[in-house]
């Protein structure tokens, strides 16, 4: 019987349904639009503020704004949605109706991740497309003004802008899965949000810790640095916007490795989240 079959195997349909619903929740959230509007507004400002761009060229200036929206507002979105979707559901007690159905806790966790990630992807995709459009318009204007600079055609590689956007989705997905892991332990959503922010910042600084540990005399400091450098993923790997702003591109192999690295960490954090959520009382 169909019903029996669904019960004995890990049911992707359950995760998918929960993911779809969670995604619906995020895009019906005011925060999503507020952050998107802020990011697009700042991108628009990059057109108006062109006289401020000291020493850096105009396209890079616009790109800084676009990438800024993705990383700054994107990380806020990732942390808040992951925490709201996962811990918020426990806090709001909506989880009872769902978990009273014969679904696995792991299906729930994966579903929540799917919802959060799709929300991140929608956000980053909107921004990336708007950024590409802005860059294209600006570059076209510059091309007509300074044809000699653009004698070899466009300077920017737009596929790489898209690729960079996708890498931000991977990075923010890692962040979302960490927040889900923390939420699975948390007893308040504020806790998971604060820990999420701290992890995000430490993960960006992880590469510094890698270089620094062992260079201090204090055993305590070295231990802390060692733990930070090993226990956290290197979010800084995904900061290659400057390279793209210079018209350089990253190789396919690097893109694949970045996706693989991110996927590995997401899998780790989600497995651990399942482990802790499985026995969690509601």
């Amino acid at each position: 019987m169909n019903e029996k079959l669904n019960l004995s195997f890990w049911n992707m349909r359950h995760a998918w349904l929960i993911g779809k619903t969670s995604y619906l929740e995020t895009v019906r959230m005011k925060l999503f639009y507020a952050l998107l509007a802020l990011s697009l507004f700042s991108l628009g400002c990059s057109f108006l503020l062109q006289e401020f761009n000291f020493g850096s060229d105009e396209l890079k200036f616009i790109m800084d704004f676009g990438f800024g929206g993705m990383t700054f507002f994107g990380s806020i979105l990732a942390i808040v949605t992951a925490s709201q979707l996962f811990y918020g559901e426990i806090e709001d007690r909506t989880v009872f109706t769902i978990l009273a159905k014969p679904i696995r806790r792991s299906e729930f966790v994966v579903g929540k991740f799917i919802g959060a990630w799709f929300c991140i992807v929608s956000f980053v995709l909107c921004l990336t497309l708007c950024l590409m459009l802005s860059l294209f318009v600006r570059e076209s204007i510059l091309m007509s003004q300074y044809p000699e600079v653009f004698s070899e055609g466009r300077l920017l590689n737009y596929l790489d802008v898209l690729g960079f956007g996708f890498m931000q989705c991977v990075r923010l997905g890692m962040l979302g899965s960490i927040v889900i892991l923390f939420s699975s332990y948390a007893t308040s959503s504020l806790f998971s949000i604060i820990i999420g922010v701290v992890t995000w910042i430490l993960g960006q600084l992880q590469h510094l810790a890698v270089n620094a540990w062992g260079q201090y005399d204090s055993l305590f400091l070295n231990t802390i640095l060692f733990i930070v450098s090993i226990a956290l993923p290197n979010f800084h790997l995904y900061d290659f916007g400057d390279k793209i702003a210079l018209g350089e591109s990253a190789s396919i192999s690097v893109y694949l490795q970045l996706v693989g690295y991110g996927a590995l960490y997401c899998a780790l954090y989600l497995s651990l989240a399942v482990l802790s959520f499985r026995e969690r009382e509601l």
Partner: protein
Amino acid sequence: MDIAIEVKNLRKDFVLARQSQRLRAVDDLSFQVNTGSVFGLLGPNGSGKSTTIKAILGMLNPDKGECLIEGISSKKRESRARIGYLPEGPYYYKFMEGLEFVSLVGQLGGLTKLESVSRGEELMDLVGLQDACDRRISGYSKGMLQRLGLAQALVNDPSILILDEPTAGVDPVGAVDIANIIGGLKNRGKTILLCSHLLSQVETVCDEVAVLNKGNLVASGKIDELLVAGNEYMEIPECSLEATQRIEAILSEEGQSLVKRRDRKSLEQLFIELTQEEE
């Protein structure tokens, strides 16, 4: 008779956050719900009713004892395959529309999208929410939420229904509606476990009850057996004034007198009569 739900020596302690003290929410509780019967779990607020239900649904881990649904331990996911649950509260996804939500629950229980929508429409009709199908749940009143909760509990056509305070926050007319729906479900052979602190509402539908107080079982059994009669009274039928006076005279010889009482409608009854005339 088959046993639908069995609770054996259930004990649940909560660790209180601040003190390292423990709160015993349920203590050594045992009862059985027979297939096809309506079982009421009664008790004041905080007596452990919801805790018991969460243990039955596997949302809490018992400190001692166990819960079985149709012989399957609550720890197993399979035990929840044929259950409909109305949580206490009620709290549902505010961002969804009513029918959308019922359909989601149906799909999580194994229905296809199409099935879940048509089944959802039927049920929204049954609980009287046919006009609110595509309204956001955030705009529902408390009574509407309870009805919605009933609809989602029924969407997978479960054989066992677990209802946590189904009439909380509902007006008396609504409570009667809900009681009627429950009665109808009982007639269709469903097993129902419901809990409530409003005893009068439960009385009419329950076959059996268990009464909890501070986590302890204080009484249980068939409802007729539990409601042991108080003083016995005799009624004087309509008769002449003379007849009444003679009865009083006889009584006064024995140093007694007639006790006069007037039947009083309950406020609830009055409310129901008044509002139903309006319709």
